[in-house]
Structure formats: structure tokens, C-alpha cells
């Protein structure tokens, strides 16, 4: 059984190294094929492990080798395949394998083809380490690894120059990559503090040891640990206020957005909270804070997606919003529900992004949805799949999103946090509206693209074939809910609902109603040509379309003063003080040599004079230091 674990873990690494060998060369198709094949190997190993865990209900735990053994600190390189991690493994490898195949077509004409597959597989490897590790240190390694690969991938087209914020809110791919990495770094500081607190108080970083000992610790300390770990999760899962990087990360190629910013990396934060559930169960107040923040982000992000014109940014904001939903569930103690929503969301969000990729390819990388329209005629299959994904996102029965999202709303209502429920309910409506706004503006209505001279065509057959399994999963995944619950709650705590019967039906009905209402409004409005231009004058519109001016605030409040501080530290301190001191020492030596050169003038008379001076000095020394006095 261990060999399947190793296969699942290391196949992406082998694929990455293989592709890296051709990194600087022009496109070689073999890199894409080999990487994708290895990812399928990883996928089948994960599926086999899932089958094994399901049938035997046992955990596979291996220790690869001792990594750090210093004093009392013993951190092994260990991996565990239990119910939670096998679900994550299957999700990650499914989406990754399909995205790899898709990328063969998407990146067909890109000169960095080999480099792309190397980075993509490296990312999957880091993510696998993250979910399979059996201690917090391994988790952190995977955490940093995905951060790094995300930086590499978002900044894939690093040669594009910087532009101003009104031309492109993300300024440039390399800027966006730096922003993502730096924001994650800031959050990682919090996570590190959490890890240090854990180690200091329990003496180990292994999950089993920590979770056993955590009940014995003082509540204030556990709250602190929970808060700091959540700060780390906030960075990775882009919760407010560390959310601006996610929208800007759309500068990377679309498969990257599909894999990283929909299905895997951003869910790492949720995974952390789910994995550390004993900590969060002990401090329900921290959990409530997490849930509140999640609900806020859900509405916040959905509001920004309402008015945005950029195809990928709308989907990015929807990801942000759904992450908020997941955190609500995790914060209120319904961990298995959060995991379930994580899994279904991965499928339909990846599908949405891949569909968006098809549209972009057809429209020569144009992103403004107001320049599209009526594409359903030429891109039939893409349109169908995106509609399926949007229905799943909006939470319509029988698609997957219905089961997971509705459960979260039930949880909110059930734990008597009615305000949270209202926020989530409004968010569901907004979600439905903007998803179908997107669908209507891109695929139906007037064919605006003809004015701009685009000639769209459907994507290659294998790209559609890669998207098809995701579509199928988006449809049927919801029906596995009961089996999923039974399976996962062997490890995760169960959530006992207090509301039953008619209340539940009423809740479901109300939620479905608002979702359908949102869809209907979008379809109605946009089939009649959309909203009028007068809305653009509205200050609320201005606020939303500028992302509540938060990036501008961050730039003024943090980036510019910090850059100024750095400039001062460089010019005033480093150049003037440190460099000057070193230069001064060198100068002193140089000048003294320069001045001392006079002694060797070549003039016999002056050299004799120096000899006499030396003689006098020696005589003085004799008088001063003579041994016989």
C-alpha cells in the first residue's frame, strides 16, 4: 500500500523534473504528454488509495526518513493517508490531471511550453505534500511550495511591462505575482507564530500528538494558536483583508487559474482549518469569528463581481465568495460540510475557468465580456459546459452546488446565527445573478464581437474532452453526499442538526427561490440589452468597480511608505553609513600608502634622512625599554 502513496506523491515531481530538463528549449510536445501521463498515474494511485480507505477504513501512515533531529525537536518526513487527506488527494489529482491535458492545447503556441509544465507539476507535488503530510512542518513545506509555484505560474509571462492601474488593475503579471507572494508571506508569519506556539507548548508538531495534547492546554493559548493559524489560512485562501492578490492573479495563464485559484491552493487554508479541527472545536469563539469573516467575504466578493467587466475576474471573485462559504462552515464546526463544498466547488469552478479559457482563446485573449456576445452559436459545447457549471455554482438542484451550499446555509440557520444566514442567503442570490450575467453577456444576446473583428472558433477536441469529466462530476457529485458524510466523519467531528423536517424544506425552498430569482433577473435583463449606461454614474457602482478602492488604499497606506522606508534605508543608512565606513577604511589604507610612498623617493639624501630618523627612534626605544636600569 505504501507504494501507491509514493506513486501518488512523487509522480508529479518526476513529471516536473522531466519537463524542467527542456526548460529553456522551444516547445516539445513530449513534456506535456509525459507530465499529464504521470499525473494520471498519480490520480489512479489516489483513487486506489480512496478505494482502500473506504473499504478497509484504515489509515496508511509512512515515515520516509527523519528530517530534523535537533535536541528535543524531532520532525520526520512522514505522510498519512486518512479519510480527509485522501479526499483532498483525489480532488487535487483529478483537477490537475484534467488541467494538464487541457494545457497541452491551451499553451500550444506559447514559447514557454516546457517551463509551464514543469512549474505546473511542481505545484501539484507541493500540494500533495501539503495534504499528505502528517505534521505541521510538512504542511508548512507544502504551503511554501505552493506559494512559490503560484508565484512562478502567475508571473509566467513576466516579460510583460508594468502599466498603470486604470489600464490594467493588476498592473502586470510580475507585479501580480509579487503581490500574491508577498501577501502570502505576511500571512505565513502568522502561521509560523502559530506553529511555534504549538511546538513550544506541546513539544511536537505531529498531528496526532498535538491534537491529543491540545485539550490539556489553557484556553487562551489555544485561542491564540487558532487565531495565528487562521491568519496563515487568511493569506492562502484570500480572506479579507489579504484578498487583493486573488483577483490580480488572473494575470497568469487560464489553466493556472483553474488549478490553483479555484481548486487547490486557495483551498489549502480551508484544509488547514479542517485538519486542525480539534483546536478550533476547543475555541468556538474563534470559530465564530472565522465564520463571520467568511460570511462577510462571501457578500463582499459577490458585490464586486456584480459589475466587473473582466471575464476571469468575475470568476475569481466568485471563488473568493465561495471560499467565504467554506470558512463559514468550518468556523461553525461543520467541518465535513466545508470539505464537501471544497470538493464540489473544485469541480465546477475549474470547469468555469477552463471554459473561460476556451472563450479567451477564441477571442484572441480578449477579456472584456462587453466585447463578446452570442458565442453560443460558434462554441456550443463550451457554452453547455459553462452553463452546467454556472447552474452548479448557483446551487440549483440536482447539480452539485445545491447539496453543498444549501447544507452550509442550513448550518448557519441551525446554529442560530441568523445574521450569517441572511448574509449567505443574499450572497447566494448575488452569486446566481452574476454567474448568469456572465453567461448571458458572453454566450447570448447581440454578437458584439463582430464589431471588433474577432473570429471565434470552438476549442480542440481534447480540451473539451478534458473538461467533460469535470462537467459530469459537477452534475453528479452532489449525490454522494450521504456516503461522503459517513466516510469523512470517521475522523472529523459530526455536526448534529437541531432543525428538522419542515424548517429544512422551507430553508431549501427559500434559498432555491432566491437563486432562481437571480438567474431570472439576469436572463431577463441581459436578453434585453442589459442595464442602462446611467448606472455607471452611480457612486455605488464606482465603489464596486474599483474594488472598494482597497488596492489603492493598500498602495497608499502600505506600499508607498514601505518603499519610501526602504529607499531611506538604502540611500541614507546603507550607502551613507555602512558603505561609507567600509570605503573610509579602504581609503585610509590607500591614502596612507599614497602618502608613505614619499619615503621611497630614490633620492639618496632623503633616504639617509629617513634612516637617521629610524635610528633615533630605535635609540629612544633603547632608552625607554632597556632591561638594565
Amino acid at each position, binding site marked *: 500500500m505504501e507504494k501507491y502513496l509514493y506513486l501518488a506523491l512523487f509522480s508529479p515531481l518526476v513529471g516536473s523534473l522531466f519537463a524542467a530538463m527542456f526548460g529553456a528549449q522551444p516547445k516539445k510536445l513530449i513534456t506535456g504528454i509525459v507530465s499529464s501521463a504521470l499525473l494520471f498515474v498519480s490520480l489512479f494511485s489516489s483513487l486506489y488509495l480512496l478505494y482502500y480507505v473506504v473499504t478497509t477504513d484504515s489509515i496508511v501512515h509512512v515515515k520516509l526518513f527523519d528530517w530534523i533531529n535537533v535536541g528535543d525537536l524531532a520532525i520526520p518526513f512522514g505522510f498519512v493517508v486518512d479519510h480527509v487527506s485522501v479526499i483532498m488527494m483525489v480532488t487535487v489529482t483529478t483537477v490537475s490531471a484534467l488541467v494538464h491535458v487541457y494545457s497541452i492545447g491551451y499553451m500550444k503556441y506559447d514559447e514557454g511550453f516546457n517551463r509551464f509544465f514543469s512549474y505546473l507539476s511542481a505545484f501539484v507535488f507541493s500540494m500533495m505534500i501539503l495534504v499528505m503530510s502528517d505534521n505541521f512542518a510538512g504542511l508548512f513545506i507544502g504551503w511554501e511550495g505552493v506559494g512559490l509555484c503560484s508565484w512562478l505560474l502567475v508571473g509566467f509571462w513576466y516579460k510583460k511591462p508594468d502599466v498603470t492601474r486604470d489600464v490594467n488593475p493588476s498592473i502586470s503579471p510580475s507585479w501580480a505575482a509579487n503581490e500574491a507572494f508577498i501577501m502570502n508571506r505576511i500571512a505565513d508569519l502568522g502561521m509560523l507564530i502559530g506553529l511555534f506556539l504549538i511546538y513550544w507548548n506541546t513539544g511536537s508538531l505531529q498531528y496526532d500528538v498535538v491534537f491529543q495534547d491540545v485539550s490539556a492546554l489553557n484556553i487562551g493559548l489555544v485561542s491564540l494558536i487558532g487565531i495565528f493559524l487562521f491568519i496563515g489560512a487568511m493569506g492562502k485562501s484570500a480572506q479579507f483583508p489579504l484578498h487583493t492578490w486573488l483577483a490580480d492573479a488572473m494575470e497568469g495563464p487560464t489553466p493556472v487559474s483553474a488549478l490553483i485559484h479555484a481548486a487547490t491552493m486557495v483551498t489549502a487554508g480551508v484544509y488547514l482549518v479542517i485538519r486542525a479541527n480539534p483546536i478550533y472545536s476547543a475555541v468556538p469563539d474563534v470559530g465564530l469569528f472565522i465564520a463571520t469573516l467568511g460570511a462577510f467575504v462571501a457578500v463582499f466578493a459577490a458585490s464586486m463581481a456584480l459589475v466587473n467587466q473582466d471575464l476571469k475576474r468575475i470568476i475569481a471573485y466568485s471563488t473568493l465568495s465561495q471560499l467565504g462559504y467554506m470558512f463559514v462552515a468550518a468556523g461553525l464546526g461543520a467541518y465535513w460540510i466545508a470539505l464537501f463544498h471544497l470538493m464540489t466547488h473544485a469541480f465546477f469552478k475549474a470547469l468555469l475557468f477552463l471554459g473561460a479559457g476556451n472563450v479567451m482563446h477564441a477571442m484572441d485573449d480578449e477579456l472584456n465580456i462587453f466585447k463578446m456576445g452570442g458565442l453560443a452559436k460558434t462554441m456550443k459545447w463550451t457554452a453547455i459546459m459553462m452553463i452546467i457549471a454556472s447552474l452548479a455554482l448557483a446551487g440549483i438542484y440536482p447539480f452539485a452546488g445545491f447539496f453543498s451550499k444549501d447544507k452550509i446555509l442550513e448550518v448557519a440557520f441551525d446554529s442560530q446565527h441568523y445574521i450569517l444566514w441572511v448574509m449567505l442567503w443574499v450572497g447566494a442570490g448575488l452569486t446566481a445573478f452574476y454567474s448568469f450575467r456572465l453567461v448571458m453577456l458572453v454566450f447570448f444576446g447581440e454578437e458584439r464581437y463582430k464589431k471588433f473583428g474577432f473570429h471565434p472558433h470552438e476549442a480542440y477536441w481534447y480540451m473539451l474532452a478534458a473538461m467533460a469529466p469535470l462537467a459530469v462530476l459537477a452534475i453528479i457529485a452532489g449525490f454522494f453526499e450521504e456516503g461522503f458524510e459517513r466516510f469523512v466523519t470517521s475522523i472529523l467531528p459530526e455536526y448534529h442538526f437541531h432543525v428538522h423536517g419542515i424548517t429544512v424544506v422551507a430553508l431549501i425552498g427559500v434559498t432555491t427561490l432566491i437563486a432562481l430569482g437571480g438567474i431570472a433577473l439576469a436572463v431577463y435583463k441581459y436578453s434585453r440589452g442589459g442595464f442602462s449606461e446611467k448606472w455607471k454614474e452611480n457612486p455605488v457602482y464606482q465603489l464596486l468597480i474599483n474594488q472598494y478602492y482597497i488596492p489603492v488604499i493598500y498602495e497608499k497606506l502600505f506600499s508607498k511608505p514601505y518603499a519610501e522606508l526602504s529607499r531611506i534605508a538604502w540611500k541614507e543608512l546603507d550607502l551613507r553609513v555602512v558603505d561609507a565606513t567600509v570605503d573610509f577604511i579602504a581609503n585610509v589604507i590607500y591614502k596612507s600608502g599614497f602618502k608613505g610612498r614619499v619615503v*621611497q*623617493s*630614490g633620492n639618496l*639624501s632623503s633616504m*639617509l634622512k629617513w634612516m*637617521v630618523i629610524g635610528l633615533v627612534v630605535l635609540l629612544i626605544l633603547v632608552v625607554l625599554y632597556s632591561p638594565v636600569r
Partner: protein
Amino acid sequence: MITLSHYLVLTAILFCIGLVGILRRKNLLMLFFATEMLLNAVNIGFAAVSKYYMDLTGQLFAFFVIAIAASEVAVGLGLLIIWYKRVGSIDLDTMQSMHG
């Protein structure tokens, strides 16, 4: 009474006169004269020490100093003459080819 100290003080004075000569003289020949003075001054010192300690070593030393001084003068004058024939001046300031 004339003690050893008298002779040694005399030696010191003569030696320093020789030093003055070395420092002052810019003509190479004059420099040689001053060098001779140095050697003679220490010869007096050696001889004085030899007498007051009843040891012959000092006198022998002075003897060898004289021998060496003689040979040094021979060689030095020979070189000086060759230089004068080649350059035409024996002023020290003209003998400087390093630039300091």
C-alpha cells in the same frame, strides 16, 4: 681622570657630526668623507673599550674596520668615477630615477 665615559661621549659626538655630514651633503664625494668619519668615530670607541676592560678584542675589531673601510673606498671611488664619466655630475639630486 679620563674614564671610559669620556671616550664614549667623544665617540658619540664624532658619530653625530658624521650623521650631520651624511644628511647635509649632496655631493657624493662629500658623502664618502662623512662616511669615513662615522667609521673613525666607532674605531675610537672600540679602542677605548678595549683599553678599559683590558681586552684585545676591541682593537682587533677596529683593525678589521680599517681594512674594510679601505676596500670600500677603493670600490666606491671606482664606481664614482665611472658614474661621473657617464653622467657628468655627482650631485645626489640628479641620481634620482624613481619618482617617489
